[in-house]
């Protein structure tokens, strides 16, 4: 992406930063100024190719950049000052690390001569962010700056994507040096393997061809690999006729309306998905990592299956679960080979899968996502179903906070495309969804961007409503307000004798007034029969909206695999009496999270 005029010019470090952003195709930066980044802000002021989005808290910048990245497939960029600016960015960095989101975080630092002197707003940024980044750099020489930023983009976006930090002392921003354009020769110690071993792919095809009870289990890696990977995944499913489930992070890679879809798996996944995982004879894990929310009790996880695991990260293969065939490579590339080899060598015998599909139909008939409707009170599941019904035909992107509402969103909002679903999976960060929605909206100004929120989570980063108003980003914050930290309350009911220690919010703000105070639009609804109109109003308002959707306060999120239990020991909604809930987890399971 070089253009001739940038070839090796002399410029200041601050100029280099902006030039490097342009040369790496950056259009938007989320940030917050401060003493240690003022030279860079001065450069930003003097150009208009890179647009800076001013947030209200650096955590907001990070999550906005994550939403931007997840919804576009490009790196998200944030710019923060030294000390508190950098430490405020730590949560989104760790969040991006766990969900493999490409972020480039530029931090200001005190001048090199003051490093180590406990100077004002000094912190050991590379030390603090070392464990929560894929890699980080402290740039002490202006002549290394451009190359370092280019490398930062390369590392963040290739291999298993992740967050990186470039820490830039203030004197380096003022110093003059030679700018070098992005280079194609990356460092020799960093060369992710993208092409899978063909022999192993062959072995996988063979194993799959002989399967009687197969299941495809796909994850966020398919989305990270790009739209082509999702396309190939669909092709593979069509070719093989296999059932497919997905993790929370992978929703949308295979369409929820597809006929082989059995729903999300894991702790709050569908009964049919988890039972199929448990009883399958061949499991094909594509770009997922056998996380503990997925496997349930490990020593009872899918006991009779052979497992194929495709992943770009060698440390993911054989980490939690033994892979009979582990294929290291980019999911998209491996799927390409897999599809090609399947076409060439395997004969699809869809009839042989009939008994398996029949069994799955029986599990599906348990209707594990069912809930009791209520005509006086809005059930949270109903709210999501209505939201889905009224927005599914639009250009919609969904983000979430963390809690019950997040799981209900995953269960009842259905995704037919990748990159439409932004949620904090690995870290489970409350406060993610609102700023993430801002980031998505900045990337897709004309889309309908909705944060399905919880009343507690949304208060953690509420200040970004102000940013949304400033940038006329009409994000819709759809709060399932149950007055509780519902997920915490549910666990207290499950594990702690229903003693609801500090999970009730005594002093809830008036979200409608709050919306108005920010210059947005507030809506409140507490009647099921008024919900549709209220949602339509939310969609039609061209402003940021806080929608206070008052839902049943004590609803629990089912189905659920209680901690320490196996896939075939799910707690189903129709069996979840108070007694069953109170006794669902035994003493051993209590230690688990």
């Amino acid at each position, binding site marked *: 992406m070089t253009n001739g005029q940038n070839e090796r010019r002399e410029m200041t470090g601050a100029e280099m930063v902006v030039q490097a952003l342009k040369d790496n195709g950056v259009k938007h930066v989320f940030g917050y100024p401060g003493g240690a980044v003022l030279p860079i802000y001065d450069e930003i002021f003097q150009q208009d190719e890179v647009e800076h989005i001013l947030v209200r808290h650096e955590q907001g910048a990070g999550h906005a950049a994550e939403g931007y990245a997840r919804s576009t497939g490009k790196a998200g960029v944030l710019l923060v000052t030294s000390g508190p600016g950098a430490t405020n960015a730590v949560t989104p960095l760790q969040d991006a690390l766990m969900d493999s989101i490409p972020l480039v975080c530029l931090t200001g630092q005190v001048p090199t001569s003051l490093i180590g002197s406990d100077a004002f707003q000094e912190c050991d940024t590379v030390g603090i962010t*070392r464990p929560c980044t894929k*890699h980080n750099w402290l740039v002490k020489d202006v002549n290394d700056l451009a190359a370092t930023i280019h490398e930062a983009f390369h590392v963040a976006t290739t291999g298993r994507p992740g967050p990186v930090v470039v820490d830039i002392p203030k004197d380096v921003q003022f110093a003059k040096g030679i700018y070098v354009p992005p280079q194609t020769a990356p460092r020799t110690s960093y060369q992710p393997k993208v092409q899978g071993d063909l022999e192993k792919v062959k072995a996988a095809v063979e194993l799959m061809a002989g399967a009687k009870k197969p299941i495809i289990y796909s994850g966020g890696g398919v989305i990270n690999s790009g739209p082509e990977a999702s396309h190939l995944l669909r092709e593979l499913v069509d070719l093989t006729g296999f059932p497919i489930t997905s993790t929370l992070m992978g929703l949308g890679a295979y369409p929820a309306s597809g006929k082989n879809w059995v729903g999300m798996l894991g702790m709050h996944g569908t009964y049919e998905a988890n039972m199929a995982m448990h009883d399958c004879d061949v499991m094909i894990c594509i770009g997922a990592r056998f996380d503990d929310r997925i496997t349930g009790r490990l020593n009872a996880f899918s006991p009779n299956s052979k497992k194929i695991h495709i992943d770009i*990260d060698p*440390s993911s293969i054989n980490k939690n*679960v033994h892979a009979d065939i582990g294929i290291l490579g980019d999911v998209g590339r491996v799927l390409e080979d897999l599809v090609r080899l399947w076409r060439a060598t395997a004969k699809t015998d869809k009839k042989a899968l009939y008994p398996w599909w029949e069994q799955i139909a029986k599990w599906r008939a348990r209707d594990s996502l069912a809930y009791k409707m209520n005509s006086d009170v809005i059930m949270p599941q109903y709210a999501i179903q209505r939201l889905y019904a009224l927005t599914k035909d639009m250009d919609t992107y969904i983000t979430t906070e963390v809690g019950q509402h997040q799981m209900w969103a995953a269960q009842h909002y259905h995704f037919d495309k990748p990159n439409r679903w932004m949620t904090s999976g690995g870290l489970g960060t409350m406060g993610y969804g609102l700023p993430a929605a801002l980031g998505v909206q900045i990337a897709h100004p004309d889309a309908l961007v909705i944060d399905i929120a919880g009343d507690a989570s949304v208060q953690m980063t509420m200040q970004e409503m102000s940013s949304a108003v400033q940038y006329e980003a009409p994000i819709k914050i759809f709060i399932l307000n149950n007055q509780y930290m519902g997920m915490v309350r549910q666990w207290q009911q499950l594990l702690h004798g229903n003693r609801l220690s500090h999970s009730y919010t005594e002093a809830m703000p008036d979200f409608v007034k709050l919306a108005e105070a920010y210059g947005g639009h507030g809506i409140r609804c507490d009647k099921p029969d008024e919900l549709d109109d209220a949602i339509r109003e939310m969609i039609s308002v061209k402003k940021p909206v806080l929608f206070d959707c008052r839902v049943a306060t004590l609803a629990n999120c089912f189905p659920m695999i209680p901690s320490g239990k196996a896939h075939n020991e799910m707690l189903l909604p129709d069996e979840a009496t108070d007694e069953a809930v109170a006794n669902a987890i035994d003493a051993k399971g209590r230690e688990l999270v």
Partner: protein
Amino acid sequence: MNAQLQPTGSAYFIAKETEKPESHTLSVLVDNEPGVLARVIGLFSGRGYNIESLTVSETEHEKHLSRITIVTRGTPHVMEQIKHQLERIVPVHRVVDLTVRSHELGQERPLERELALVKVAGTGDARVEALRLADAFRASVIDANTEHFIFEITGKGSKLDQFIAIMKPLGLVEICRTGVAAMNRGPQGM
């Protein structure tokens, strides 16, 4: 088929360990740049792996390469994880489990050597005995006056342990050990 393994990255499933932990020696070739050792050490502490010995020094100045030798303990599965986790670190070029490699070469273990400086103070019989034993261990005297010796001794860790134990009653003052340097036998590099 029982396909389950002990997860290392998660505190959530505290399952019983079935494989036996064993000592392994790893060689890690890294770019010699600021923070690289912190990355390696941080990985071990952050993921709960232990370090029994750590040695690091630049080995190829022109290429800015350093070689880190780590002795650690773990089950075969944990060792595989440690290796892959190390490989993920951007400035890491190569990771070789010398112990596994030596088994592949039909050997019991890689070549491992450690150096120690051992200061012993005393007079009379103890002093004579210390010098006699040092000789038997092929330790050399690198500093001395009438009241003390500093011995330099090189060898396997167990030999150093033994030498130090013997010196204890003879006026042992202080010890400094380098940690293990190791490579595999035979003509091939790592």
